[in-house]
């Protein structure tokens, strides 16, 4: 007996899906921004910080990367109230996702830093820059360029992984889909729709990363820098 698909009842619940989608964007968007900030800070600590701080950073990375995201989410939501810290499901979800991404992205950023030749850093220092200024102005952009594909891959994992927080009823797309499913009993159709939305979301996010990469790694038009009397663009470029 062939199954007849009926999307009608599911699509009638479009507002729930829209809400869920918006919440997933907000949740992973905030998680990504905070997580990347944590990751960058931890990576800088790992390459430049004092030994004791580096030890703490390593411990943080190892703990996060060797435990499931779901357990981390449960810890923040169910565990913290026992030490007097009661967080809403949504807040716990953002914090857990941020800390999770922080650990993974820290190692990616660190790989980028290590890929930059020491001579570049020495050139910065020799010009009188501090170590932090050297990282800020000399190292970060080329380092990001090296690891950009790895980083965006990780961010996609974070976006998709955000679905596990439905386990603590944090508002997001998978939770919305579950509700629709329990109301319509159209499991197949419901999760096909949810899946399609996730695919669309990853494309939108990846497009955003691509725009960011254009902004980060773009080259200024040399014409803007030409001074009177210089040869026209193209002619002025001598052997590469």
């Amino acid at each position, binding site marked *: 007996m062939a199954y007849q698909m009926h999307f009608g009842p599911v699509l009638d619940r479009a507002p729930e899906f829209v809400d869920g989608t918006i919440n997933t964007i907000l949740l992973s968007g905030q998680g990504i921004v905070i997580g990347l900030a944590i990751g960058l800070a931890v990576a800088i600590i790992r390459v430049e910080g004092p030994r004791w701080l580096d030890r703490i950073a390593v411990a943080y990375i190892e703990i996060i990367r060797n435990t499931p995201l779901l357990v981390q989410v449960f810890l923040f939501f169910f565990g913290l109230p026992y030490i007097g810290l009661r967080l809403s499901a949504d807040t716990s979800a953002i914090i857990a996702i941020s800390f999770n991404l922080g650990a993974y992205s820290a190692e990616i950023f660190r790989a980028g830093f290590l890929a930059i030749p020491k001579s570049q850093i*020495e050139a910065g220092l020799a*010009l009188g820059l501090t170590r932090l200024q050297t990282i800020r102005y000399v190292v970060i952009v080329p380092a990001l360029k090296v690891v950009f594909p790895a980083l965006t891959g990780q961010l996609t994992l974070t976006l998709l992984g955000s679905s596990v927080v439905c386990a603590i009823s944090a508002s997001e797309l998978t939770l919305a889909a579950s509700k629709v499913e329990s109301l319509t009993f159209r499991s197949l159709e419901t999760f096909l729709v949810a899946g399609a939305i996730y695919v669309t979301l990853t494309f939108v996010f990846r497009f955003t990363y691509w725009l960011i990469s254009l902004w980060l790694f773009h080259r200024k038009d040399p014409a803007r820098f*030409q001074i009177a009397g*210089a040869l026209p663009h193209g002619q002025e470029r001598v052997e590469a």
Partner: protein
Amino acid sequence: MPAVQLNNIKKCYGALCVLDGINLSVEPRDVVAVIGQSGSGKSTMLRCINGLEQIQGGSIDIVGHRIEPGTHSLRSLRKEVGMVFQSYNLFPHLNVAENIMLAPRVVKNVPKPEAWETAQMVLKQVGLADKVGAYPDELSGGQQQRVAIARSLAMKPKVMLFDEVTSALDPQLTGEVLKTIAELAAAGMTMILVTHEMGFARQVANRTVFMYKGQIWEEGRSEDLFSAPKTPELRSFIAPNLK
């Protein structure tokens, strides 16, 4: 008062001393060439002078700053001492103007219009005024090295250190970089150059230092040193160059 004075500096890795009690005094407007075999400690000495390497003994006095073993605050010194490297080390994500303006802007808080003026001036000085907007990978090795010199000049250094700056270049490109350095010498810049270009050392440097096994083996006026080497080590070192 000398611009640079090395007092018995030592730099050792375990039992191996790559710099074994170096004494050297460089007067303002001096151009000192440092020659010697690979591994004789030339580059290491240069790197100690602006603190890229730590010394283990002795002290260095340089334009009013003192470096001793364990000295860490080297930024004020580096503002006044330029360094140019063998591998150019231009920043690949910045164009020529940005490469040159970075340190004045960040380290000295020079306003942008002023930094821009300076960038154009130093680029003209090295003969690359038309390359302000180019990126490092669009330039030849010789051009990159001249931009690196300009970048260093933009900080208005009192002393410049050159670490085998032509070793990665073919003879023609070497020529254009050496010409730039000779012009700086003529303009009265105090310079220490580690080099394998014997002819250039003889011509442009008023003094030459020959290093051998971590020590200054022989030094003197370039003319005297090359025409009448005293030690057998220096004689055999420069022999292949005296065709």
